[in-house]
């Protein structure tokens, strides 16, 4: 499984970013290889409109199976994500990435 988190930093201890389109980072965890990567999405702050679909496009490049975020993406981003087939789990806005992963493992999201 390849799991992507929207976060405010680059490690397991980083706080989750509850936003999707304008999230600061993606944390990408490959369970099979036990490898943690990150992607810097802070450029999205420069988009007047349409940050959601653009970020969703970036996400697509990591071909994730699961996306864990806070409040859930907006309408346009959701349209893109539906095409990618990723499973979206919300409600992790107040956690760290590690806590969010554990919550997912325990079926709490």
């Amino acid at each position, binding site marked *: 499984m390849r799991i992507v988190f929207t976060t405010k930093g680059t490690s397991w201890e980083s706080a989750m*970013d*509850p*936003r*999707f*389109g*304008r999230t600061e980072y993606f944390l990408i965890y490959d369970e099979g290889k036990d490898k943690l990567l990150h992607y810097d999405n802070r450029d999205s*702050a*420069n*988009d*007047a*409109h349409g*940050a959601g679909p653009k970020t969703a496009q970036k996400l697509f490049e990591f071909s994730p199976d699961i996306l864990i975020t*806070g*409040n*859930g993406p*907006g*309408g346009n981003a959701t349209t893109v994500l539906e095409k990618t087939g990723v499973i979206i789990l*919300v*409600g992790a*806005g*107040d956690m760290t990435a590690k806590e969010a992963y554990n919550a997912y493992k325990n079926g709490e999201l």
Partner: protein
Amino acid sequence: MKEIVVISGKGGTGKTSITASFAVLGGKNVIVADCDVDAADMHLLLEPDFQDSEDFYSGELAYIKQGQCVKCGKCADVCRFDAIPIINNQYIVDPLSCEGCGYCARVCPTDAIINKDLNVGKWYISNIKTGSIMVHARLGIGADNSGKLVAKVKSEAKDIAEDEFKDYVIVDGSPGVGCPVVSSLSGASFVVLVTEPSVSGLHDLKRVYELVHKFNIKAGCIINKADINPEVCKNIEGFLQKENIVHIANLPYDEDFTKAMTNGQTIVEYSNGHLKELIAKSWKKILENVK
């Protein structure tokens, strides 16, 4: 740190007056973010000192370097917004018509057109009379509020709240149902809907709640001027129950709101009566729900 966002869908419901009251009640523990930049009025009640300011850029505007222009007219041909008229034998960009799509620059054979970041206004960090800090913005004429500006104001406010160990950010949200309000809602811990019992109030409440619901955010509602129209008020209460929205309070139609505003005060500073008590209770109820 929790983020409480106040929105209303339509104007004139008392959203800003109520939000400013909450800022006063929360005192030093609340950082304020004014994201209603189209009608940014919160500063009239909270006495900001405009301590820090920064220009804000959003979108782009085409600019023609006349020295490099060979007057081929390709730019004007491709522009769908009639934004490149010929004035005194020169192709000039009309800033109010230019949409910033960048098409003209892509077809210019001599690279005479560049896209400049468009300065749309300023944003400020201010000390306010509650002993706390407010982040706010002011737009230029013809400039549109954008998700970008709202995101900027909010993220500055959140950074300050985190650096100074404050528990809450309270956001005066944008009107309507477009990109700015989506950006206002994004990241919220709790949404407060302020409405009034008029035919348009209920209509706009339903529209904006659709968005809140989509984002899966817990919401509560304050019905202002509740006694103006008992029938519509009942309908709103029914809607709240059906949608599982916390009914925070009904506030009466009261000219003390205006009198307080005229004094440059929030209602909780101006009045000691019933209204103040109701708003204080509302704030308490919101905090209980945010936990």
